[in-house]
């Protein structure tokens, strides 16, 4: 008996049981059972993490081990980064379920069951070593996520958000299906190690490039890179807060993880001669995403939508980090994902408290109305600082690794881009904290369309007189973790080592197909002096930007009219693109895929 399959089997069976006993179960039983199952999955994943950190291993379902180096069965190929991500997903699910105890006035076992299936899918996605298995868990995760988005099925926003989410991500998944089909046609294999071994030593031709483009686009649709990101803001704006915690905290990052996994297991060897060009393509994609998300984030007044665009901006940083195609870049992304996920989870929970108490999520409507909740306000501001990568917070260590990787790859301007993204996203959150919880700045602004949208969203259970302590405690603990995880001795070097092993393609084939663990030696880095400088600059910039928007109105009026009008018009065009119309989104998806495919075919063959 082996525990490898249990982190998927336990929540799936638990979900089935919760649905079976739904007519008889009471609320407290569902809460207790859901929490207990999530806690057991955390334990199981942590055990896998501990074991794989010593010795990564492949587990063959049903004992169908490879015969003469040819895979027959399906493997879970467990390495510390995958197991760590699975553990992280389980922690966020548990936190979200505990938060939801008090958040929902009325909820039944269906919600808990959906959350547990979601968990099983995310864990399977992070652990599997088989490309088709990956897409099955991807689809399972997606289908549950659509249902969770539309959990408040009687309201208009969630219906439209779920439709946009479902159609966008389904199209992405079909692209992945085609990519897998092409790779199977070429190699006759579905196991990632086997495909990688088969392609090793061959130059990438058009078929391999097209397969890679389709796989990347499919998973980047989940990760919400521009221009396939449109669904994310819609889904996050309308999904219940405990669900947004998972969407932003870990689901989107799993898309990035998949891109990293398939690149290093499958495409790294055949594309080695063109690594520089691929790096340029991915960094360009990440740069556009980081800036687009950052600007849109700062332009929002619907707080959950603001946080959603902040996630898109950070996804841009992750795409850049992966796109640097180095172990250090991957380590930076992995570290940043932990810090960002914990922070964003906490911020969505705090936004949920605003809905729970005040039944509103519009920044201007809420002007000063958060004064009665000083603790929530302080936590919100800490979240903003964490997004701005304040020194010695976990995100800071991630960012310093990303900076180092960028300089190693001779992208000297990339650290400056990261600073801009941090300033925009951190500044937006700090601005909200100042306006809502202190009452700084103006109480009114003209664009009423979005205010209506924000007002329309109630999630059905606002207007409570007091906040249950548990609902503040959970985000407080998550933020504490976001601050201290990076300071735990050995945590960041451990991630760096795991990332170095993750990118060791030859070793991956060895430990998956032959059970032989042999890694090339890897070095760890340390934080440089200029990292503190960049991070301090980003934090100061975020604070300054927030202050400028809150108090700078007289100053801004003195600016020359021309550039102000031009940038307002540009922003208007950008916002117009987020039309909420699914046909528009798929048109962008098609154009983006064609552009990425065209650029890849020209530059990489």
């Amino acid at each position, binding site marked *: 008996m082996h525990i490898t399959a249990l982190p998927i089997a336990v929540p799936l069976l638990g979900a089935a049981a919760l649905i079976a006993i739904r007519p008889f179960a009471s609320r407290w039983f569902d809460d207790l059972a859901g929490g207990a199952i999530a806690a057991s999955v955390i334990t199981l994943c942590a055990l896998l993490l501990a074991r794989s950190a010593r010795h990564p291993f492949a587990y063959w379902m049903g004992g169908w081990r490879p015969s003469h180096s040819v895979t027959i069965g399906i493997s879970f190929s467990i390495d510390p980064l995958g197991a760590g991500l699975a553990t992280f997903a389980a922690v966020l699910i548990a936190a979200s379920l505990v938060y939801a105890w008090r958040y929902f006035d009325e909820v039944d076992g269906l919600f808990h069951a959906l959350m547990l299936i979601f968990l099983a899918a995310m864990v399977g996605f992070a652990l599997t070593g088989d490309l088709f298995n990956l897409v099955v868990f991807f689809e399972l995760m997606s*289908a549950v996520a*659509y249902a969770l988005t539309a959990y408040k099925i009687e309201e208009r*926003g969630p*219906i439209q958000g779920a439709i946009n989410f*479902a*159609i966008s991500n389904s199209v992405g998944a079909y692209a992945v299906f085609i990519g897998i089909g092409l790779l199977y046609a070429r190699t006759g294999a579905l196991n990632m190690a086997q495909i990688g071994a088969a392609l090793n030593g061959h130059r990438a031709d058009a078929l391999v490039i097209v397969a890679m483009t389709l796989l990347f686009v499919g998973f980047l649709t989940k990760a919400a890179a521009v221009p396939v990101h449109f669904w994310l803001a819609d889904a996050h704006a309308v999904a219940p807060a405990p669900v947004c915690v998972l969407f932003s905290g870990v689901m989107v990052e799993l898309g990035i993880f998949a891109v990293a996994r398939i690149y290093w297991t499958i495409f790294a060897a055949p594309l080695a001669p063109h690594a520089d060009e691929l790096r340029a393509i991915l960094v360009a994609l990440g740069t556009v995403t980081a800036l687009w998300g950052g600007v849109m984030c700062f332009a929002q007044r619907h707080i959950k939508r603001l946080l959603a665009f902040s996630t898109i901006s950070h996804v841009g940083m992750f795409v850049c980090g992966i796109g640097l195609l180095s172990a250090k870049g991957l380590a930076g992304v992995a570290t940043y994902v932990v810090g960002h996920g914990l922070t964003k989870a906490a911020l969505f929970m705090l936004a949920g408290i605003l809905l729970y108490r005040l039944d509103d999520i519009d920044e201007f409507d809420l002007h000063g109305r958060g004064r009665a909740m000083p603790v929530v306000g302080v936590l919100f501001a800490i979240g903003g600082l964490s997004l701005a990568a304040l020194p010695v917070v976990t995100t800071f260590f991630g960012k310093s690794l990303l900076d180092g990787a960028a300089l190693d790859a001779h992208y000297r301007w990339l650290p400056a881009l990261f600073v801009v993204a941090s300033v925009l996203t951190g500044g937006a959150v700090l601005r909200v904290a100042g306006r809502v919880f202190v009452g700084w700045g103006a109480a009114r602004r003209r664009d009423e*369309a979005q205010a209506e949208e924000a007002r329309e969203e109630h999630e059905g259970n606002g207007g409570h007189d007091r906040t249950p302590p548990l609902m503040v405690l959970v985000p407080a603990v998550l933020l504490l973790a976001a601050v201290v995880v990076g300071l735990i001795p050995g945590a960041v070097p451990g991630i760096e080592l795991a990332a170095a092993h993750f990118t060791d393609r030859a070793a991956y084939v060895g430990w998956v197909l032959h059970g032989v663990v042999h890694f090339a030696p890897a070095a760890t880095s340390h934080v440089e002096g200029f990292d503190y400088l960049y991070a301090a600059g980003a934090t100061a910039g975020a604070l300054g930007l927030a202050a400028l928007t809150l108090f700078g109105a007289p100053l801004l009026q003195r600016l020359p009219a021309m550039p102000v009008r031009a940038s307002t018009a540009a922003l208007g065009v950008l916002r117009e693109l987020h039309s909420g119309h699914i*046909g528009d989104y798929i048109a962008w998806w098609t154009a983006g895929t064609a552009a990425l495919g065209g650029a890849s075919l020209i530059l990489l063959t």
Partner: protein
Amino acid sequence: MTFFPFAVAVWLFVVGLYGVVSSRNLVRTILSLTVVQSGTYVLLLGIGYRNGGQAPIYADIPAVSKAVDPVVQVLVLVDVVVEATVTALLLALAIQAHKRFGSLDPHELRALRD
């Protein structure tokens, strides 16, 4: 094996996308989505096809017979299950959309815009 099935697969994928983009009715959007997915079925089955191959059910035929690739057929089967789930979910959402927006036209869904 000819080029033909792959051309059909690409055509279905692209024409389905065009359907999603141009649709003025959510039910048509959802059905166009299934057309996109049909492209993936044809592609996968085309990859596994062998000229003169039989169905890979070895209970009835000698084990040495030429057969089509069963792996891609399994993939298509999974694909079909996914389609059933997602289509059912989307159609349920379309019913709700009609109830709440009073229309199935994507242009009339105006709860979310920036």
